[in-house]
C-alpha cells in the first residue's frame, strides 16, 4: 500500500486518488485483512507487553507499604547497579568473540559447499543445520551433561589424554563453554543463509574468474566474499542482538553449576533474577527497558551503517 502511494509521479498520484475515490473500500480491505493477524500479534505480544513493562518500571511495589509511583527511581537503581553493568560487559565480550567466530566458521563451510569441492554436500549441509532444529533448552541441557565435570565424556576424555581435570564450568571457562554451545547451535543456521546467498551469485562471474586463472581461495575471498557482504552485515547484526540477549544457556548451566553463573551474569539473567528470583518485578521491568534501549541503539547504528553502505535504496 505504501509502495503504491509513493510510486509514480503526479499523474500516478492523481490516478490513485481517482481510484481511491471510486473503489476505496473494496481495494483497501484485502490488504488490511492480510496484515491484520500480524498486527494483532504484534500488538498483543510485542507492543502491549512493552508498554506494560514501561508502565511497571515507573512504580515500586514493597512488601511493606504496597505499590506507589516512583518515577525514574528504578532506572537509577539499575543504572547504578554494578551487577547489571558486569552483565552488559560480559555479553559485549561474548559478542566480540562469538559473532565473528560463528560467522567465520559458517562462511568457511558455506563457501566449501558452494564450491562443490566436498562429496555428499547436501547430506553434510543438512547435518550442519540440524543443531538449529534442536530447541535451545534441549541443546543446553545436552551440552551440560556432556561437559559436566567428572561425569561428562569430554572431561573424562581430556583427563584420559593426560590434560588433567578440566572443569568446563569453572568461572574462567564458563564463557568459552557457552561460546562452544552457541557456536554449535547457530553455525548451521548462519551457514545456510550464507550458502543461499552464495548460490545467488551468477554462475558466469565465477566461470569468468576460473577462466582467467583465479585460484579457489582467490575466488572465494576476493570475489564471493565481497558479493555476499550485505548478507554478512545482516548476520553480524542479527547475531549481535542475539548475543546481547544471552539467557537460555546460562540459565540452564546455572542449574548444573550455580556458582559459575552470577546474579547478573548477563543482562537478561539479571532481569530474571530481580523480577522472578527476588520478586522485584518493577526493577526487573526497568532493567528490561534499559536493555531494550541499548539493543535499540545498536540496531539503529547498524541500520545507519548499512544505509551508508548503500543498502535500502
Amino acid at each position, binding site marked *: 500500500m505504501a509502495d503504491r502511494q509513493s510510486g509514480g509521479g503526479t499523474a500516478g498520484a492523481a490516478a490513485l486518488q481517482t481510484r481511491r475515490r471510486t473503489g476505496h473500500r473494496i481495494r483497501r480491505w484485502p490488504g488490511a485483512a492480510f496484515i491484520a493477524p500480524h498486527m494483532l500479534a504484534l500488538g498483543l505480544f510485542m507492543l502491549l507487553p512493552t508498554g506494560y513493562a514501561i508502565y511497571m518500571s515507573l512504580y515500586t511495589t514493597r*512488601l511493606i507499604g504496597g505499590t506507589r509511583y516512583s518515577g525514574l527511581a528504578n532506572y537509577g537503581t539499575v543504572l547504578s547497579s554494578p551487577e547489571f553493568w558486569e552483565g552488559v560487559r560480559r555479553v559485549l565480550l561474548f559478542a566480540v568473540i562469538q559473532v565473528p567466530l560463528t560467522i567465520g566458521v559458517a562462511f568457511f563451510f558455506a563457501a566449501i559447499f558452494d564450491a562443490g569441492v566436498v562429496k555428499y554436500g547436501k547430506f553434510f549441509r543438512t547435518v550442519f543445520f540440524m543443531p538449529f532444529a534442536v530447541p535451545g*533448552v534441549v541443546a543446553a541441557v545436552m551440552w551440560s551433561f556432556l561437559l559436566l565435570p567428572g561425569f561428562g565424556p569430554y572431561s573424562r576424555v581430556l583427563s584420559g589424554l593426560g590434560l588433567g581435570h578440566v572443569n568446563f564450568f569453572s568461572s574462567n571457562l564458563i564463557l568459552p563453554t557457552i561460546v562452544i554451545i552457541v557456536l554449535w547451535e547457530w553455525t548451521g543456521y548462519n551457514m545456510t543463509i550464507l550458502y543461499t546467498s552464495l548460490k545467488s551469485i551468477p554462475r558466469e562471474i565465477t566461470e569468468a574468474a576460473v577462466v582467467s586463472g583465479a585460484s579457489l581461495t582467490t575466488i572465494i575471498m576476493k570475489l564471493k566474499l565481497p558479493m555476499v557482504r550485505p548478507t554478512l552485515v545482516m548476520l553480524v547484526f542479527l547475531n549481535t542482538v542475539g548475543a546481547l540477549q544471552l539467557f537460555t544457556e546460562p*540459565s540452564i548451566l546455572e542449574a548444573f*553449576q*550455580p556458582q559459575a553463573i552470577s*546474579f547478573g551474569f548477563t543482562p537478561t539473567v539479571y532481569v530474571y533474577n530481580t523480577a522472578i528470583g527476588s520478586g522485584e518485578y518493577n526493577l526487573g521491568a526497568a532493567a528490561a527497558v534499559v536493555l531494550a534501549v541499548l539493543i535499540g541503539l545498536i540496531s539503529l547504528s547498524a541500520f545507519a551503517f548499512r544505509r551508508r553502505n548503500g543498502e535500502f535504496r
Partner: protein
Amino acid sequence: MATSHSGVGNVRRTSTESRTGTAARPGAQGAGRRRRIFGLAAAALAATTVAACGSTGLPAPSSAGGSAASGSTAGCAAGATHLTFWGWSAGYDLAVNEFNKTHPDICVQLENAGATTAEYVKLNDALTAHSGAPDIAQIEYFELPSFEITHSLVDLSQYGVGSAKSDEAPAAWAQVTQGSAQYAMPVDLGPLALYYNEKEFSANGLTVPTTWADFATQADKLHAANSKDAITNFDPESPQDVLALMQQYGAFPFSYTGGNTLGIHFNGATETAFANYWQSLIDKHEATTAADFSPTQWTNFDSGADASRLSPAWGPVGMQLSIKQTTGDWRAAALPQAKTGQNLAGNWGGSSIAVVAGSKYAKQAAEFAQWFGGSADAWKILSGPVAGAYPAYLPLLDSSSFQSSTLPISGNSTPNTVFASAEKNIVDPQWPPIMTAALTQWTSTFAGVTKGSETLAQAFAAFQQQMTSYAQAQGFTVVGG
C-alpha cells in the same frame, strides 16, 4: 525455564527413591537453586543407574507409586467439595488418594506447580492476580513468613487444627505459628547430625567430638595423620546448609516476629565467630568446600577424603546411592556443640501444608491439612518407600519400629535414634519474610569463599549489606549488627 528443571530433577529423584525400596526417608526439601542442582545431579546419576538397571522410562512425579495419577478425582463421590492442592514431593499423590478414599465428602486434586521457588513464584502471581490460586499449598518452613506478611495464608487455629500440636515436633510447630495464629500444618523435617565414617575415625584414632572446639582438634589430628584428609565438607554456597549450621551454633542471622521490623545480623559477634571458625578449617584444608550433592562431594565421602558429613535426617538415603566403598561404615552422632553441656540441633529442609487465603472451602482444606501432616493414616504413606519423608509427626518419630530401622549405609546401627532425638533439640529459626531473595542472591555472594578469593566473614559482611538494602527497599525497618 527454571520450572522445568526442578520438574526434571523431581521426576528423576522420584525414580531413584522408588527403586531403593527399603526404609527410605529423604524428603529432601532443600530449596532454591541448590535444590535444582541436587535434582539435576541426582538426575545425572539416576540417568546412568536407570540405564544400568534396564528400567523402562522415568515415571512422572505424580505416578511414581504406580497407582492412580495425580489430578485423578476418580473415587470421589458426587457432590463432594473439590479442593486444589499444589505440591511437588514424591508420594503426595498416594496420600491424597488415601484421603479421598476415606473422606467421601471432600475431593482433593493434587497439582504439581513446580518445586519450591518455582511454586512460590506461581502462587504469588496467582494471589496477585486474584485468580487461579489453589486451596492448599505445600510450602517449606522458611517461606511461610513471606506469605504471612502478604496475608496470603489462612489462620488454621480457627478450625481447631491447634489440637494437633501435641503430636508435632516443637521446632516444626514453632515455625508454622506466629503468636496465637497457625499458618500451616507441619509435615516433615530434616534435623542435622554428625554422620561420620567410623572406619576412618578409628583408623586415625579420632574420637567423636562433642563440641566444635573438639571437632577442630580432631580435624587437626586427622590432617596431621594424612594431609589429604579433611574432617568434613562445608559448602559456603549452599544457603540452607549454612543457615542450618548457624542456627545450631546460636548464630542464626535473622530475627523476625512479624510486622515491619526485621533483624539482620550477619555481622554479629556469634555470626563472626561462626565465620571465623569455618574459615580457619577451610584455610587449613581441614574442611573441603565441594558443592553439596556434587559428584566431587560424594567422591570425597567415599574415598575417605572427608571423614564426616553434617547431614540432615533425609541425607543418608540419597548418600547411599552415591557411594560404594564405604557402605556400612557410616554412623550418626549428635552434632558437636558450641558450648559444653548444650544439646542443640539445626534443621535443614522439610515442608508444611498451608491453606491459601481466598479459598472458598477453608474449613475442609484445614481438615485435609491436619490429616495430611498429623495422622497415622497419612504417615503410613508419607514415611513409606515412595514418599520417604522424615516425620515431624511424633507418634511415628517415637515409635520403636521407626527408631530401630536400619540402612545399608549404616550397617547394623540405627541412625534414626540419633536424628529423632536431634529433632527434639532443634533451635527455632526466625525466618525473614525475604527468603526468596536471600536464596537467589546468596550463591553469587558466597562463590568467592569456595574460590578462596574472599573469607566467609567478608562474604557475611557483603551479604549483610545486600540483605539490608533489599529489606529497606521493601519497606522494612532493619535492625542490624
